[in-house]
């Protein structure tokens, strides 16, 4: 169920209507069901992975923070995992026919999925081991128990991520490396479908356990609240990656309707739809026409397509974040800001404080900082490179993402070196403005190239397109498919909105505009969004991550 689909247009008001009628506990339960329905609309089998992640981290959190679980808590978590395995992967629901023309009944031969039976067996084994070892683990001294809890969580989550996202990639890379050495190896591949949003929710659940381990957060006793924290539908598949210390208390405390928050939520949804439908979808065909072309393309084509891709990714992803935050605000729950006019950044450090903020801060707190503190010499440059390389790999199981991460790591290192050594410039106000503008332009140009690394389909294309850009091959001939009119009209509006946010430093600056001006802005966004409804819809780019 995409945010820009008719289904979601019906789903969200239905959820809001029921939500408004329920008390706090009922709201949370309903949101949990709605979140599972939302995610299950892609593929209900992968709900089992969410349930697994939920149960493991809930269990580990309590083991770390409280020393163990009560019998009731263990029963609840065990039942949840077993039922999830049974309902989402073991039973083939298409074998159950109710009210069909050929009569109701069950096709017993096809009722059980063979792989699902294994998953059910695995879930039962896990439940048995966890319950059997519970007493033993809870008797261990504090440090050992906490360490076991932490590693169990990290191990399970990284295994899920590794199997479903990276296994085939590393096997494929190993095969290629062996073939390069003259060994014709055929290794096992899983050929599994990548579950939507797996990188987002595994990071979110892992940071819960890590925060409990670091004593920054008490473990939650309420299983259903924790399950909602993991599966909360507005941000489940593409973030923002929420910190448990922020989202869990919001979920656990009653919400009050506030008109200003509701209005802001509506604006964010409108802004997100405008970005996604009018701009991102409006330029997608232009970008694809160059990056999917097998013929020769010129430098102008590569430059223009890459520039449009910058806008496509930004509008696609920040559009998703806007809709997620907006939908959540309608429910009375604030989510973190994920983008703050990123193309106005003057340097890489500032860029990562403006682009995908929830991921960059996650990487900083849970990867970069531990790497620095693990190093006895506290060296930050290697830690920066490792963080960005892994951050690149997080984006996708492909070497071009690693290269993209490495490129940004290098930029951050160069910037850190320069910042530490360069003298503080002393200029008047006008000079400072020019320097800021020049910094924005120069960094945008450098960052623009990084999007080529991000979008390219292969290393060969990276080399080919880079060579084309360097040599200026193809002259000024533009064969790229032109962007849709909604994008042509929408891009200046987007720049205006971002400039307003950048100049005022306030994402809510639009609310201080006169009423007629705000009305004109909303009307313009609606009009351009409606113009974009004729564009070919594309799936959100970050779903694949």
């Amino acid at each position, binding site marked *: 169920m995409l945010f820009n689909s008719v289904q979601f247009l019906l789903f969200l008001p239905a959820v809001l209507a029921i939500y408004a009628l329920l008390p706090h506990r009922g709201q949370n339960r309903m949101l949990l069901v709605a979140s599972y329905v939302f995610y299950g609309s892609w593929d209900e089998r992968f709900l089992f992975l969410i349930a697994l992640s939920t149960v493991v981290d809930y269990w580990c959190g309590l083991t770390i923070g409280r020393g163990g679980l009560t019998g009731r808590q263990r029963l609840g978590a065990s039942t949840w995992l077993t039922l999830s395995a049974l309902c989402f992967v073991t039973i083939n629901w298409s074998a159950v026919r109710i009210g069909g023309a050929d009569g109701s009944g069950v096709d017993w031969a096809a009722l059980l999925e063979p792989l699902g039976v294994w998953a059910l067996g695995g879930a039962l084994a896990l439940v048995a081991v966890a319950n059997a070892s519970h007493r033993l683990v809870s008797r261990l001294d504090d440090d050992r128990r906490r360490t076991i809890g932490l590693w169990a969580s990290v191990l399970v989550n990284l295994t899920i991520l590794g199997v479903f996202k990276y296994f085939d990639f590393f096997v494929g890379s190993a095969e290629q490396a062996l073939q390069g050495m003259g060994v014709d190896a055929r290794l096992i591949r899983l050929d599994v479908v990548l579950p939507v949003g797996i990188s987002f929710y595994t990071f979110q659940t892992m940071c819960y356990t890590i925060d409990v381990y670091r004593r920054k957060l008490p473990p939650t006793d309420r299983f259903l609240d924790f399950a909602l924290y993991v599966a909360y539908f507005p941000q489940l598949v593409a973030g923002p990656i929420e910190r448990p210390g922020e989202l869990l208390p919001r979920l656990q405390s009653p919400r009050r309707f506030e008109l200003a928050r509701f209005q802001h939520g509506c604006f964010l949804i409108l802004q997100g739809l405008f970005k996604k439908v009018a701009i991102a979808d409006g330029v997608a065909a232009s970008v694809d026409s160059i990056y999917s072309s097998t013929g020769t393309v010129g430098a102008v084509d590569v430059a223009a397509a890459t520039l449009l891709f910058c806008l496509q990714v930004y509008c696609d992803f920040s559009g998703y974040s806007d809709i997620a935050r907006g939908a959540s605000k309608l429910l009375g729950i604030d989510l973190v800001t994920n983008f703050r006019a990123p193309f106005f950044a003057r340097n890489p450090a500032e860029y990562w404080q403006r682009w995908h903020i929830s991921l960059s801060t996650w990487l900083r707190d849970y990867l970069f900082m531990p790497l620095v503190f693990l190093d006895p010499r506290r060296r930050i440059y290697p830690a920066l490179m490792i963080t960005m390389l892994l951050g690149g790999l997080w984006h996708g199981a492909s070497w071009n993402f690693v290269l993209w991460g490495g490129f940004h790591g290098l930029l951050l290192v160069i910037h850190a070196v320069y910042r530490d050594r360069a003298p503080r410039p002393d200029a008047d106000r006008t000079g400072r403005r020019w320097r800021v503008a020049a910094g924005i332009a120069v960094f945008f140009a450098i960052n623009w190239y990084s999007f080529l690394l991000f979008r390219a389909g292969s290393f060969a294309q990276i080399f080919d397109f880079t060579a084309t850009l360097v040599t200026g091959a193809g002259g000024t001939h533009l064969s790229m498919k032109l962007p849709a009119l909604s994008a042509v009209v929408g891009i200046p509006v987007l720049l205006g909105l971002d400039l307003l946010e950048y100049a005022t430093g306030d994402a809510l600056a639009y609310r201080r505009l006169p009423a007629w001006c705000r*009305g*004109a802005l909303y009307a313009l966004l609606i009009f351009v969004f409606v113009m974009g409804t004729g564009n070919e819809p594309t799936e959100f780019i970050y779903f694949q991550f």
Partner: protein
Amino acid sequence: MLWTLVCLAVIDFAVGRLFASPPAGVRPGPLQRRFDQGRSVEGQLARMVGATDRSSAPMAAAGWYGSRPDEPTRAAHDGGLLVAAYGMSTSFRVCYAMQALDPTLTFRLTGGPNAPLSHSYDSYQKDRDRHDADVVMLGISAWALAGLESMTQMLIHFDAPAPYTYPLYRISDGELVATEPLVQSLDELRRAMGDADRWEAFRRQLAEHDAYYDDLVFRGGRLDESTLVRLLRRGWGQRHIRRQLARVHDTDGYRPDSTVGPVARAIVRSFAETVRADGRSAIVVLFHEQGFADHLHTLLGPILRDLDLAFVSTHEIAPASDLDSFLPDGHFTADADRRIARRVLAIIEAEGLMNTETLPLSTSQDTSGSGASSASSG
């Protein structure tokens, strides 16, 4: 909220006035065309179909069988060939390129904008006794193949509707069965539009048989005057068409569960039998537009080989993934047209139909020099 509604009304009105469609006979600019898209099919028909053929838009007259009465019925040059070509603009462009390569060829062109195979096949059935063509060329467009589930181009291309109609074919008990449209000429369309009962019967037929029919897109009214409503209708209509097209074709090719494949194969088989019964040679040209890789070749290549029917597939001559092969409007470039034309001429030569002395040197060179020819000659 009130300001938003007021501003929306102002934008709606202002865009409507600024980019209003020009009077009949004046070609609209790209922005005028863009902001007029989404007008209901009935609204567009009312604008394009005049009281007479002369007062109607050229698009209204295109594609109906018999709309090109001056097409030659025999070869213009002694010893030359008459090629009767059935298809769409893409195949006509190849015919023009062939004629430029060999001026002794004469072409009889029958087709319509984005015409699907059903239209081309029906046109040949109607046309076969009206000319002395030696060679019959059938152009099949990968994009237009989805039109086999339609009866007219005014629904699948509701943004720029061509109202011509054609039969809807289906397979019943192994036989190709046609459902004829209630309207079969521009004149009949004009009369139907002036007769509420006849129009309703035609609309009901489309609603029942044409997979691309959508009531919201088809029916007109006062709301046609609002730019915002037109844009919304366009978005809705595009969504509907995309959903229908997705049932026929995806990134892997034509879907095996779609009826389009079996019907296309049955039409090709029937076409081959008819042409052979008429004592003519047939050539099929499979046009792969952008986004279709070699999918049409995958779908129809086996049956064409089984039938021993000569064919050319564009996917190796001008690959669908090569941007250089295409013009911005989706047609092949002149250079790609020439390359395709050379392949078709090479087949005609191989069939022994052409006086080889008339063939331009480049054609022979191209043929002999092609190691991986996509042309399969029966």
